[in-house]
């Protein structure tokens, strides 16, 4: 209990004066931007709109998202997020012989666009940004991908589950705050439910320690732990994480 109290205190220390967290329903203001290494880079468009894309993956997996803060009442913010992803190039790239071949060389990729729709509700005070999100991901397609094209690599299976199942439901909760001396702390819990024949679920718990030594640089170190029950069996995995973010303001 002491640790939980300490975590809440640390997280609640202060959330003000930083770009809104990636998970939040809040968006960047017009002309505010943030380039990130692994997380989505963000571009404030004004009118409560934000454009997002994982740039490091764009060449292999073109992706773009729009986040629209649809409502703000006091400390409550609500946003809709829609993302389109084309996985075909990535599937072709990892379908090969030898090391790095995540899929067999003769895999026929499914030509489809993955559509990810989410609603995010954030509670934001001077000290804390807590967000709850629910969403669904689908991939309209003419045929089933079959056993051959399943990307059952750890962490990828639920994120590409829409290619093999009717839909993937996603529920996520996160809390982000700031520590003294430019440090910050965040935690999130994300669940995936694969709908359709075979089913399956995955729960991921993440924690991140953030350091912002300057206005334009954020370093994040963290971990993710996943527990999954999938058609390929029960799994658990961990992953240390690292990210670099570069917020800036063109105004």
């Amino acid at each position: 209990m002491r640790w939980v109290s300490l975590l809440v205190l640390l997280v609640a220390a202060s959330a003000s004066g930083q770009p809104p967290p990636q998970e939040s329903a809040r968006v960047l203001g017009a002309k505010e931007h943030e380039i990130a290494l692994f997380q989505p880079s963000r571009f404030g468009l004004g009118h409560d709109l934000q454009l997002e894309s994982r740039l490091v993956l764009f060449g292999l997996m073109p992706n773009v998202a729009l986040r629209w803060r649809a409502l703000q009442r006091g400390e409550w913010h609500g946003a809709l997020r829609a993302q389109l992803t084309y996985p075909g190039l990535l599937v072709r790239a990892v379908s090969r012989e030898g090391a790095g071949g995540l899929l067999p060389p003769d895999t026929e990729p499914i030509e489809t666009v993955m559509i990810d729709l989410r609603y995010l509700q954030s509670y934001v005070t001077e000290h804390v940004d807590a967000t709850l999100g629910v969403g669904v991901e689908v991939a309209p397609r003419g045929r089933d991908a079959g056993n051959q094209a399943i990307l059952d690599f750890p962490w990828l299976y639920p994120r590409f589950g829409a290619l093999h199942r009717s839909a993937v439901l996603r529920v996520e909760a996160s809390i982000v705050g700031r520590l003294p001396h430019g440090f910050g702390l965040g935690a999130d819990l994300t669940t995936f439910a694969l709908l359709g024949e075979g089913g399956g679920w995955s729960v991921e718990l993440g924690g991140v320690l953030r350091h912002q030594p300057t206005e334009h640089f954020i370093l994040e170190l963290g971990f993710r732990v996943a527990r999954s029950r999938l058609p390929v069996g029960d799994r658990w995995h961990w992953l240390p994480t690292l990210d670099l973010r570069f917020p800036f303001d063109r105004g």
Partner: protein
Amino acid sequence: MAHRPIVGVLSACVWLAACDPFHTELGTDDVVRREATEVVPAPSAPSALRVATWNIKFAGGRIDFFWDCFGDRVLMERSEVETNLAALAAAIDQLDVDVLFVQELDLNSKRTDHLDQLQWLLDHTDLSHGVYGSGWRADYVPSDGLGAIDNGSAILSRFPIEDPARIPLALRSDQSAIERYFYLRRHILTANVRLGPDRTLAVANLHTSAYGTDGTKLSQIERFHELLTEWDAAGIEFLAGGDLNTLPPGTVQQRDFPDTVCEDEEFIADDYTLEADWATPLYRDFAAAIPLADYQADNAAHFTHTVDGRGFWNRKLDYLFTNLSFDTTRSQTHLDMARGGIETMPLSDHAPVSAVLELGP
């Protein structure tokens, strides 16, 4: 003081990095026990057992896979796996064995559509009890599209099986650390078959390294011999065998086999000239199902392996030994319908060897 959180996180990362992220490490207790959904009662007080060993190639039949260099297949459809398993199950019932050693059985692999082949065979043969030891397990093998794999050896029996254990064998030393991390971990699967209230039979199923030139296979065979010697000295009755991936002493052709088409040295096993006497201690100290004299009199009558489904068996790799005795007049290498009563060439890249083990008083 301000750096403590960073030090903590970095320490945690180092600690996590030292773990086993794809769960490939295997220990002595990485074994599985299974029973048929409907258990057939075991015979009582047997005086002899019909026994066999068979490398079933994960029910891949004669599909040309990428690793045998005859084709490029990586994954099988569920229907292919079940069709091949049904043919194997029919052959196993025809062998009419009491104890069967199996090598290369998939428990949960993407290449065989995650079908539990041990449970499938128990449910579709007269053998109701089984134990399994993983020899190659990884949540994901990021190569050639293999994905998740759990492959190993098993012992199936009409009789209950107790005390399964996995004796890890030496790993290949001629691979990089990353290759070795994802590679096979050979072992001896041991157990006790409960033949009656007061009698058990120790069993040991071995599958040695097929490839490599670093002497790992020799050390694995030596460990096998050492185990059997210990059992024999302790007065433990045993049946042992499996796919030793080496030729018997006195083999005429020891290299340049016609089914060697791989150019990648990782998959070439074509020269046994340095292994001519590796199996000698086993033949010297224990009884073989196929006596060495019989084999040396006619090598071809006892060949058990070829990777070429369009060719025919061209070398003997599979063995059965005991410190009891075999009725060698009833030992059989099941080459085909005429010589063994089963058309085994389409079923696997190995032929089964069966024998009658005399238990004595």
